[in-house]
């Protein structure tokens, strides 16, 4: 609980009776070579809620998101400093001592552009389970169905699970990717601008899906669309030039921003 009070210089705690913290970011710095992309980020992510990261291009919101599943480890010459503590076991997931595979088994991700594998719908969803060594057909079948239902895709694809995932429409592909992310029962699901490549109708269905997921899973979403953040999230963080400018409950941040920068961004004066 001490963690919460030091982390967020906002009215989060006054408004909500001590929501449970899933993860706390402490003094997080991140570097691409010599370029510092994240500067001293301090932030708590609340369990079973949707938290949105907004800000202009290049503000570091995607970089922050990708720290959560150690995606930066795939790029040479990147470096984390500080901590992202994941509860309940209080492990620092950006520590070099923690295997990134372990982190990715607990935190899954949906990307900006739908990226299904050129394999069947079934295999796309089952992949996370297969890499963990799940072989029993009955278990795979059950969890694939549950994940596809969770991603509101089951009714559309239940009769053609063996067809290639790449044959689906853009919106369906993105829901397939969400099913893939859900199949492994993650503690947190990361969304990196999940609707930027989709039409308005597909966008609406993805947003509904994200709203429905809150309550059972912690969601962290990066979006360049402020309305989207307002629609889907309970908490919003505004980032600018690699720094966390303001963080608080979404309705407060949008209606009564405390920082001038936030207010300027929300009213479209820059970004």
């Amino acid at each position: 609980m001490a963690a919460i009070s030091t982390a967020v210089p906002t009215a989060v705690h006054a408004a909500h009776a001590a929501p449970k913290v899933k993860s706390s970011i402490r003094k997080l710095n991140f570097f691409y070579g010599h370029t510092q992309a994240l500067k001293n980020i301090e932030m708590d992510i609340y369990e079973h809620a949707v938290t949105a990261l907004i800000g202009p291009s290049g503000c570091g919101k995607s970089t922050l998101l990708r720290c959560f599943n150690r995606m930066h480890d795939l790029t040479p010459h990147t470096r984390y400093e500080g901590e992202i503590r994941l509860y309940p076991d209080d492990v620092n997931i950006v520590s070099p001592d923690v295997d990134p595979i372990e982190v990715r088994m607990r935190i899954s991700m949906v990307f900006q552009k739908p990226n299904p594998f050129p394999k069947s719908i079934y295999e796309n969803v089952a992949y996370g389970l297969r890499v963990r060594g799940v072989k029993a057909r009955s278990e795979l079948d059950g969890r694939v169905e549950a994940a596809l239902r969770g991603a509101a895709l089951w009714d559309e694809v239940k009769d053609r699970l063996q067809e290639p995932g790449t044959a689906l429409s853009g919106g369906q592909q993105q829901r397939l990717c969400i099913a893939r992310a859900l199949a492994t029962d993650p503690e947190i699901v990361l969304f990196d601008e999940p609707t930027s490549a989709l039409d308005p109708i597909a966008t609406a269905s993805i947003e509904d899906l994200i709203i429905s997921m809150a309550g059972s899973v912690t969601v962290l979403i990066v979006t360049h669309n402020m309305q989207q953040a307002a629609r889907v999230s309970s908490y919003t963080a505004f980032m600018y030039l690699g720094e966390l400018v303001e963080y608080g409950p979404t309705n407060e941040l949008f209606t009564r921003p405390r920082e001038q920068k936030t207010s300027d961004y929300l009213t479209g004066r820059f970004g």
Partner: protein
Amino acid sequence: MASLSPSISIEATGSGVADIRANVARRRRWDVLFAAFGLLATSVGVITLLALFIDLLIDGYHRLTPDFFLSFPSRRASEAGILSAWVGTCLVMLVTAVVGVPIAVSAGIYLEEYAPKNWVTTLIEINVSNLAAVPSIVYGLLALGLFVYALGFGQSVLSAGLTLALMIMPVIVVATREAVRAVPHAIREAAYAAGATRWQVTRDHVLPYSVPGIATGVIIGLARAIGETAPLITIGALTFIAYLPDPPLSTTPPYVSFDWLWSGFTVLPIQMFNWVSRPGTAFHANAAAAGIVIVVLTLLMNAFAIYLRYRLRKKINW
């Protein structure tokens, strides 16, 4: 300044469609010129190949009888055949493929997916690319010293296969790397994000999706090896063989034999070379017939590579 832009636009429309047409026609001329030159350039290649092949056909067609494929070389041109040569080619290619392909494909994948990007990798990269351009006779000299003498494999099918494997490995490494690089980064990210290890990403995604490109490289490499003569002469291929190596498979235990690896050998291009260097048009007809076999084999392999690429690519849409 304000009056300038309207006057320009009036002038431009005033100068009319005729000027625009003249302008387009002037630029179009280069289109036509290049198309003509390109057609000429393409024809040079195709017609030359066709002429050579037709010439071979005219000289050697009458020798392409079943007996030609089932006879050993002979002093009499009309009785001579390519049995030992094509069997030798098949066995040497088998060794080349079995040894060369796994090593080269592994090396290519390692360099692209695993190796850290530093100056050592860059150095290896440059070396591999250069090795692909080393004249084949140099591989022959290396193989003579290494396989034939140092390792004591002698003038055998094994030495020949290893020599050609060395020769085509750089080609396959380069093709593998290109194919692996063509797998979209988004696919790798998706697999890693699902919790896969590097090996799982390679085995489940990178390798299967790059098979069309790798297969093309392998077949082009083998097609190059099949016509190779110089390095095999260097390591001591025989030019007159009237026996076949022990068969690799048999009906009696232990069913599989590897004695053929140590057998002396000849291959199609060497048999052809031998006949060309003999006096008398009868042997030259044999050489032409052997040439047809090599050319057809090579064309078939390349056609298969194209077919394979087409078939496999159709299954993969990103």
